[in-house]
């Protein structure tokens, strides 16, 4: 799950990125709205984490701009402004949720998951497909009722496929989801992860659509 973090404070940005990485998210971090714009246009992000107190352009103005031009990425606003009026302005400006500084890393992660869940049109916290169940909060998978040990990348890849069952994701799309900026992607990394997943979950679980990419097999 790839997130874009827009935060001008070095310490907070560093800590949020480190914390969310531990939660299995891929986090790209920029410090200004302008850089955020560029990032949003070049990479598909599952969610935008936006600090409102940005230099040059205020986060709120940028958020309104994004929504005006039809940007649909869910946005979680992080801010030091805690007045009710500020929260209302933030939510009405197009934010999906609002988190006031100082906040807890676990709460941030939980809110990120909740926003992603709602955005995917799901109410249940678990991702399910046939005999396969993923719990985004604990990043644990069960297959036919038995827990399966997954690496962080394997989990992220499986979660991407489970989010919209039936959709076909290309290798490039999966790479984008798995790797943030500056992370080295080996040329056959996706294939390797798929290979491992198939070994753990059975060869038929993930189908390879020739020339297009990967999708989950319809449950029996």
């Amino acid at each position, binding site marked *: 799950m790839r997130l874009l973090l827009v935060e001008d404070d070095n310490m907070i940005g560093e800590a949020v990125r480190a*914390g969310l990485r531990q939660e299995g998210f891929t986090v790209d971090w920029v410090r200004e709205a302008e850089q955020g714009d560029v990032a949003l246009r070049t990479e598909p992000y599952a969610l935008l984490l936006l600090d409102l107190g940005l230099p040059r352009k205020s986060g709120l103005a940028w958020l309104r701009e994004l929504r005006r031009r039809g940007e649909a990425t869910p946005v979680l606003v992080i801010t*030091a402004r805690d007045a009710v009026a500020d929260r209302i302005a933030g939510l009405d400006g197009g934010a999906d949720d609002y988190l006031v500084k100082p906040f807890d890393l676990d709460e941030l992660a939980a809110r990120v998951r909740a926003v992603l869940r709602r955005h995917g049109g799901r109410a249940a916290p678990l991702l399910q497909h046939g005999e396969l169940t993923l719990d985004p909060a604990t990043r644990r998978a069960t297959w036919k009722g038995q827990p399966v040990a997954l690496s962080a990348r394997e989990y992220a890849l499986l979660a991407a496929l489970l989010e919209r069952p039936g959709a076909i994701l290309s290798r490039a799309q999966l790479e984008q989801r798995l790797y943030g900026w500056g992370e080295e992607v080996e040329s056959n990394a996706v294939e390797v992860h798929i290979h491992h997943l198939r070994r753990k979950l059975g060869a038929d679980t993930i189908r390879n659509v020739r020339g297009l990419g990967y999708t989950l097999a319809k449950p029996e």
Partner: protein
Amino acid sequence: MSETQTPERAPRPSIRGRLLAWLLGALVVADVVMGGAAYLRAHQDLDDLLDYQLKQLAFSLSRQSLGSVPVLPGTPSPEPDFITQVWDRDGVLMFYSRPNMAIPMRPRPGFSNMDWNGQSWRVFTQLDGVRIIQVAHPLSLRREMAADFARRAVTPLLALLPLLAIGIWIVVGRALKPLSSISAALRARTPASLQPLPHEDLPDELVPLVGALNDLLQRLQQAMELQRQFVGDAAHELRSPLTAVQLQLSLLKRASDAQERASAIERLERGVQRSNRLVQQLLTLARQDPQVPDAATESVDMNQIARELVSDFEPQAALNQQTLRLDPATEPVLVRGEHDALRVMLSNLIDNALRYTPAHGSVIVRTRRDGPQALIEVEDSGPGIPPEQRLRVFDRFYRVPRAAAEEGSGLGLAIVKRVAQRHAGEVSLDDAGAGTGLKVSVRLPAFAPPASR
């Protein structure tokens, strides 16, 4: 009027009482003067009138023959108004109007005053060839009449005095009513509501007072507003380092191996240091508040402070592979002010410069005596500040958007500016002499001790 009563206190002078006393006193004095004037005037008129009557009486007596007039006592009148006496040529009394009033004959004709029988008399003597006619009239009568006249002129005003007193009391009370409405309005003011007092319908005399009070209220309100803003800003700004600390703490708790833990602790330490520095600077700024009265001022040598600070910062600069150099003036650069505040100011400048200067960069601290001014410059080889942002950097909590910069509190230059302003000085930002970088110049009024002149 006052609700707080101090026991055994001399009665306060009251405008109302004073006005009443003065006005009534003036009226009484005016009345007395008027009475005196009326007396004098009446006396003069009576003199003219009665002298004329004396003369007329004498003439009428001289025209009528006295044959039929009894020589011996005429009809005694109850009051000794006019006393008429007639003598013949030989000085034999032929007629007198009052038997027991034998006024001696005046030798010269015409008017004269004389004292006789314990009374002052006005006498008119006439010689008509055969007789001497003398008419006299007591002067005391004239005085009585004039006094009576004056009394009558004075009495009505005196009788009206109590009524006038009541009238003055009421009118003055009415005129002073705006004062009590002003004090009621003032009493309703609180630190939260310092709106100006209404000044419509005020008498002319009170407008300056209310104007001055409104000025004061406005200054108070501005001070309160600044304070409120400062507290709000401070609360807002404290959140960032605290958020960092909280997040770093979460990371520390999650750390699974020794290496992760070590790096989390290191980050946490930096976060705590940052919070600490912010709190320190907030306190400094609050102490340098324009509302806080001046601490004791003394003669301060900026050369000395610069020397101390440069040696204090030297290890830090060396650690970051930066060069910190002092370029002092040859003579002492004296300034009159608060030693600690001036030290904090220069310390902030050097700290800022080192913070924004990359490794292998340099920072120069310069002190000079420039005519009537003391000049302190801190020049760095950092990235500088674009001219369009140079005004804003003095705002509290403003941080120049620079990705590589260490987190500053955003208060450093605000503190520098505040201290400089308190010392009647100014701060300016320029490009450094060579290449990139920033030069901050502080100009303060130089202080020349009287002995050195």
